[in-house]
């Protein structure tokens, strides 16, 4: 265990060195992050643009803004911590260099998923913080301590879910090799998480709650912050995420068992 913690520290340090090497990227990332935040928020202003517009049923402007802030935060996690490492795996699989990772005396899933972090993406903490601030200013009162704690737990759950989904996509890469655009497909589906899940009905709602659990990732944390999340939902989200992660791990082990390297 301590060995893996040390490894994680080492991997983080190389990423930090890399980030320090490209300092100019910080400004580029910050500017892009601000820009993306603006475009994430503009549609809300249009939906709630005028007094007469009904808006999303069951969500006031401020409350919907809390969901958007959760979305921006998670997108930062996805782009900064999850995407880069797993993008590297896809390249490894295509080039056949995954062998070098597999040869190392540590768990391959751990190694590939910690291989690269885009540290400048922490800037999305700032932008989501700003949006959270505006949202709770609109609502008129801040979240309760219990609400914040529950939301933090749910963010951890959401990260685990995102990560597991990613592992599943990577496992697909072993079979179809050319999956650069599967990652793009996933990002574009993740975009739906910027809206409260009550927007979706019927089969789509089911899909976004149980198959690709976007509702768990942004709507539930927002509801926790707003103090209206049922305790049962929290418990089942945590349980569900662990089941999801376990399944993803099994599928990863299976597909890595079938890996035949390049030319195989």
């Amino acid at each position, binding site marked *: 265990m301590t060995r893996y913690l040390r490894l994680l520290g080492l991997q983080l340090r190389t990423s930090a060195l890399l980030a320090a090497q490209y300092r100019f*990227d910080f400004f*580029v*990332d910050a*500017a*892009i992050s601000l*820009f*993306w935040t*603006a*475009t994430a928020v*503009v*549609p809300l202003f*249009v*939906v709630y*643009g*005028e007094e*007469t*517009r*009904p*808006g*999303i*049923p069951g969500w006031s402007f401020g409350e919907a803004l809390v969901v958007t802030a959760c979305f921006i935060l998670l997108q930062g996690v996805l782009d900064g911590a999850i995407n880069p490492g797993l993008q590297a795996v896809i390249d490894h699989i295509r080039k056949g260099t995954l062998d070098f990772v597999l040869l190392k005396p540590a768990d391959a899933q751990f190694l590939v998923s910690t291989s690269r972090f885009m540290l400048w993406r922490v800037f999305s903490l700032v932008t989501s913080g700003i949006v959270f601030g505006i949202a709770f200013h609109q609502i008129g009162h801040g979240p309760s301590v219990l609400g914040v704690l529950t939301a933090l737990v749910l963010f951890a759950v959401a990260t685990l879910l995102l990560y597991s989904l990613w592992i599943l996509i990577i496992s697909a890469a072993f079979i*179809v090799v*050319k999956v650069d*655009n*599967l990652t*793009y*497909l996933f990002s*574009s*589906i993740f*975009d*739906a998480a910027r*809206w409260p899940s*009550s*927007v*979706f*009905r019927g089969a*789509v709602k089911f899909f976004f709650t149980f198959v690709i659990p976007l509702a768990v990732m942004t709507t539930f944390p927002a509801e926790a912050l707003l103090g209206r999340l049922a305790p049962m939902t929290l418990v089942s989200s945590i349980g569900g995420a662990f089941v999801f992660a376990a399944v993803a791990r099994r599928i990863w082990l299976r597909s890595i068992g079938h890996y035949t390297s390049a030319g195989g």
Partner: protein
Amino acid sequence: MKTFAALRAIPTLLKIGFSEAVAYRAEMLVWVFATTMPLIMMMLWTTVAEASPVVGQGGKQWGSGAFVAYFLSVFIVRQLISAWAAWEINFEVRQGMLSMRLLRPMHPVLSFAMSNLAYMPMRAVVTLPVFAILLVTELSRMTAQWQVWLLWPLALIGGWLITFFANVAIGSLSFFIDSSIKIMDVWLAAFFVFSGYLFPLELFPEWLRIAAQWLPFRYQIGLPVELMTGQLTVEAALPLLARQYTWAGLMVVASLLLWRSGIKRFQAFGG
């Protein structure tokens, strides 16, 4: 003589591109499915309009049906005007693969254009089911004026020209800077907001709508969609088409200038 030779090569280029599209059809389908945004926005807006219709700036009442017609049209138009040359150029410049294109006796931008265009037949086939759904469910909301349908392909071509040459311009930036794809991200973010991709521009506040009139983005998606859904008459559409082609012309000039000054800096020997 040189232009003539290049023109003669076009059918072959298109044929190569088309076989590529057929070979990578699964990949292309994933790209098409990744265009989920209009469908998500459709669900969002129909939910919003359920309680009471959304009133636009022009006084038009947007009910659920109007949003369905609008966003299905957006989906179709997005497929038909798409171009991805910025990523291709960026990739080839970084990998040094551009040298191969430079060896051919024709302008590299032309070969990029043809390989992008060659995907259109396949993309059009993919949009057919959506078109069918649109006509079956929301026929009454589509324009009934045949003159407007004549202008529609023109608007699509103009939209594609803007998209493609903006791609070339941003792709050419990779001769100068490392992060041209990040600039593409910024362009895309602005495109999403101002093109009518996320919401009909009519729902914008007045000042943003004026801004959108002057930016290129609404001529990529908004104009063809508004033509299809009967929001524009022929008289109203003609000045907009003129603006669209002005933007297309500006993009052509800007991108070719950028390309020309950038290509001088390109020196990939050995990749």
